[in-house]
C-alpha cells in the first residue's frame, strides 16, 4: 500500500498491513496524533486495509506557542 505522510509531504510503500491499527503500530504513531484518510473517508483503527490502498496519515498537532 501507498502511505502518504505529511510535514513535510512524502510517500512510503508498505506490504501486508491488515488493519489501520497495525499500520500505526508499524510506524510507531499514536492514534490520537493523526487522522487516517482514504479518499474522502476517515478510517477508524479497526478498518481493514489492502495492498492496493492509498492512505494519508495526516498529523493533527499544530500550533506552538511561547
Amino acid at each position, binding site marked *: 500500500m501507498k502511505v502518504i505522510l*505529511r*510535514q*513535510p*509531504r512524502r510517500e512510503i510503500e508498505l506490504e501486508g498491513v491488515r488493519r489501520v491499527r497495525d499500520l500505526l503500530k508499524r510506524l510507531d504513531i*499514536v*492514534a*490520537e*496524533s*493523526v*487522522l487516517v*484518510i482514504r479518499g474522502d*473517508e*476517515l*478510517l*477508524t*483503527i*479497526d478498518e481493514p486495509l489492502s495492498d492496493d490502498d492509498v492512505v494519508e496519515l*495526516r*498529523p*493533527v*498537532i*499544530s*500550533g*506552538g*506557542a*511561547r
Partner: protein
Amino acid sequence: MKCRVCREKAVIQIRRHNANFCKPHFIAHVRRQVERTIADYSMIAPGDRLLLGVSGGKDSLALWDILTELGYRVDGVYLHLGIGEYSSDSLRFSQTFAEERGLRLEVVDLPADYGFSVPEAARASHRTACSACGLSKRYILNRVAVEGGYDTLVMGHNLDDEAATLFSNVLQWNLEYLARQHPVLPAADGLTKKIKPLIRVAERETAAYAVLSGIEYEVEECPMAAGNTINRYKEWLNRLEEESPGIKAQFLKGFLDRGSKAFREGGPPELVACESCGSPTTGAVCAFCRLRDVTLVEIRRRETA
C-alpha cells in the same frame, strides 16, 4: 465500529467519551460541545460583535464554520506573519473559506503594516519565533478588535492547546501565566474580552471536523514552529491519552474547575497605557513596542552594514 447514535458505520472513535460516531452525528456532537462551552462560561451575550482570529489552520476555520452554523455572525482577522510560502498559503485558505461563505475577513500584514516579519523579530530580539509570533498576534488582534468596535475576540485554541500550555506552565510554575489561563478573559481598559469556545474539542476532532466538512486548510506545519516545546508536550500528552483516555480533558477541566482560582488571588495586575502606542501594559512601554523597536533597529543596522 458503529455510531453510538444510529448504529451506522463510524468514521471516528472518541475514546474519552467512550463513543464512536458516523459523519452527521460527529458533526452534530462537535457543534453541541461548542454550544455547551459557550453557555457554561457565558461567553457570548445576544448582540455581541464577534471577531475571530483566523490562521488558515484547522482550528480557526472549523470554529468559524461551527459558530456560523450555530447562528452567530462572526468576522475574521488574518495576520500575515511574513513566513514565506507558509504565510501566503495560509492566507489563501483563509480567503477562500471566507469568500465561499460570504464572510468578512480583514487582513493585517505584519511586514507591510509594521515593518517587520516574525523571523526578523525573532532574530533581532533573541526570542523564539513562536514567542515573537504569539506576542505580535495578541497585540495586533486585540488592536483590530478594539479599533473595530468588537465586543469579543474569539480564539481557536482547542483542548490540546490548552492542556499543553497548562502542562508547560505547571512544569515551570509560571504563576502569572497560570493566573491568566482561562477560557474567558474579561474586557479591561484597552483590552477586548477574549473567549476560547473550542476548549472541549480535541485537536484530532477539529481536524476531523474540517476534513468531514470539506474545509480546505493549511496541513503543513509552520516551518518556524517545527519541534517546538508545546508540540512536543502535545505528543507526550497524546501518549498518556492512549494509555488513559480522558486524561487530557481531566487535567484541563480539573484546573479550570478547582485549581485556577488559587492562582488568581490578589486580582489581575494593574494596567497602564504604553508610553509609545497607548495599549494597556504593566510596564512603561509594552512588550510589542519593545519587540518592534529592537527589530526595526536591527533591520536598519543590517541595511547600512
